[in-house]
């Protein structure tokens, strides 16, 4: 295995068909250690498909994806042990409380005892769900579920975060708090996240990938794109064929 495969996230010639619809077209990119990269693109561009392949939820039609050098398709369990994820607006088991949910997921990841209890408390405090820690999830709003999703993604302190529209459903305060959390934890983690919010991406990332029709249109530092197109917004619109 080459050293380049040891990068936290490596996507190589990834293509994905949904029946005859080509959702990803020979996509390749690499994310280095502690890099925070925003994945931008219009609806249906293929953002979620990329992230779901990395999370082992979808199989690529061709190409490969690696997490820390581990092929996601061939050894999904080993690859998944390195990442924390939020995919879309996830649903939780409504019969469990946040504490129980995190305990379940933590134990599946091999955490136990005092260490697990301490991490649960920290994660719940981090996403400000302390007052709801023992309330069944069935009573939760969408925003609260999204907070819980962030808590489970961070519970095991993974080196890599893969987030798909993680701020969706959060109120303005929640969005700000979410950004602060990702900004803080992202300094020591590789973060790959899809978003429609250019401002959010600019705030959290130094680098962006812009895709449309499953193809990678640009993958560069935001500063470079701003220099070339005058602003990230203009870069996005020009590259994706939108009106200025």
């Amino acid at each position, binding site marked *: 295995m080459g050293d380049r495969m040891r990068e936290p996230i490596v996507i190589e010639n990834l293509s994905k068909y949904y029946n005859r619809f080509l959702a990803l077209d020979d996509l390749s990119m690499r994310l280095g250690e502690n890099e925070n990269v925003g994945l931008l693109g219009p609806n249906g561009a293929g953002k979620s498909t990329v992230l779901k392949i990395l999370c082992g939820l979808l199989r690529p039609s061709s190409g490969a994806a690696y997490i820390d050098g581990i092929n996601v398709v061939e050894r999904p369990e080993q690859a998944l042990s390195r990442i924390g994820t939020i995919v879309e607006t996830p649903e939780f088991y409504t019969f469990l409380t946040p504490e129980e949910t995190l305990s379940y997921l933590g134990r599946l990841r*091999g955490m136990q005892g005092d260490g697990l209890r301490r991490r649960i408390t920290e994660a719940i405090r981090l996403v400000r769900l302390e007052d709801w820690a023992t309330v069944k999830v069935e009573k939760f709003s969408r925003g609260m579920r999204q907070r819980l999703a962030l808590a489970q993604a961070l519970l095991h302190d993974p080196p890599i975060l893969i987030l798909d529209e993680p701020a969706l459903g959060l109120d303005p305060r929640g969005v700000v708090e979410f950004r602060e959390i990702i900004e803080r934890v992202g300094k020591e983690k590789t973060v790959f996240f899809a978003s429609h919010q250019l401002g959010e991406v600019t705030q959290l990332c130094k680098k962006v990938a812009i895709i449309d029709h499953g193809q990678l249109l640009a993958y560069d530092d935001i500063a470079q794109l701003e220099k070339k197109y005058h602003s990230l917004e203009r870069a996005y619109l020009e590259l994706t064929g939108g009106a200025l």
Partner: protein
Amino acid sequence: MSEFEKLRVVTWYEFLKHLRSKRLYAILGVVIVAELAVLIGLPTLGDGYPDDLMVLAAMLSVGPSLATLGAVFFAGDAIAGEFERKTGYILFTNPVKRTTLVIGKYLACGAAVVLLTLLGYVIVCISLLGVYGHIPIETAQSFGLSLLLAGSVLSVTFFFSSVSKGTMVATVMTLVFLMVISGVLNGVLRMAGQPGWFLLSEAGDSTITVYGGYEALWEGDMPHGMSDRMLEAPDINLSIVAMVIYLVVCFFLSIWITKRRQLA
């Protein structure tokens, strides 16, 4: 962490789901009502309990049989629910083999059904002891066959749950398969004098006919025009073979399909 440890965790939390669900208590209620209907209905509306305890034992088996059918309602959402409600986005992104998840869910459903079936047989035993003063050995055989039937019904439901997009579809498909397709085919084969041991509906009857053939259980009061084949009780050994085949084949199919299923 070993896969066995993960299996233990999955099984426990899935069992917790059943313990906290209304389904468990609804089925429990149905089982108790069915047993009470037999125990109260016979002396109230008829001439009292039958002289032959085997007949009452067979009649009381309706409760545990309903508990066995409850497996359909426990297992219908086991796999399909993860895809339909998108909880799979949380569960499948953990470093756990899908095989482990399916086995854990199966064991948890099995534990819930065993609990209900056991309760049904406890009622049967207490009733037989109260009315006749003893419990026939066939009750233990019926209990064993009921557990095997529950296991095979669970497997069939897991299969339909693994191929269905929704919980409701999985549940309905299983019920149609077990009660309509299997039931109708069984009736047709009986009328035609052909063997039907491979059908789960016929194999399932063995939990009751273990107490005696249909003729014995109906105390000779059989409808006219019934052929020998129609009166023939299912062969216990063939019933066991049929149930084991359903249990194993459908269970492995559900694992195989779930492992390949994608969550878009």
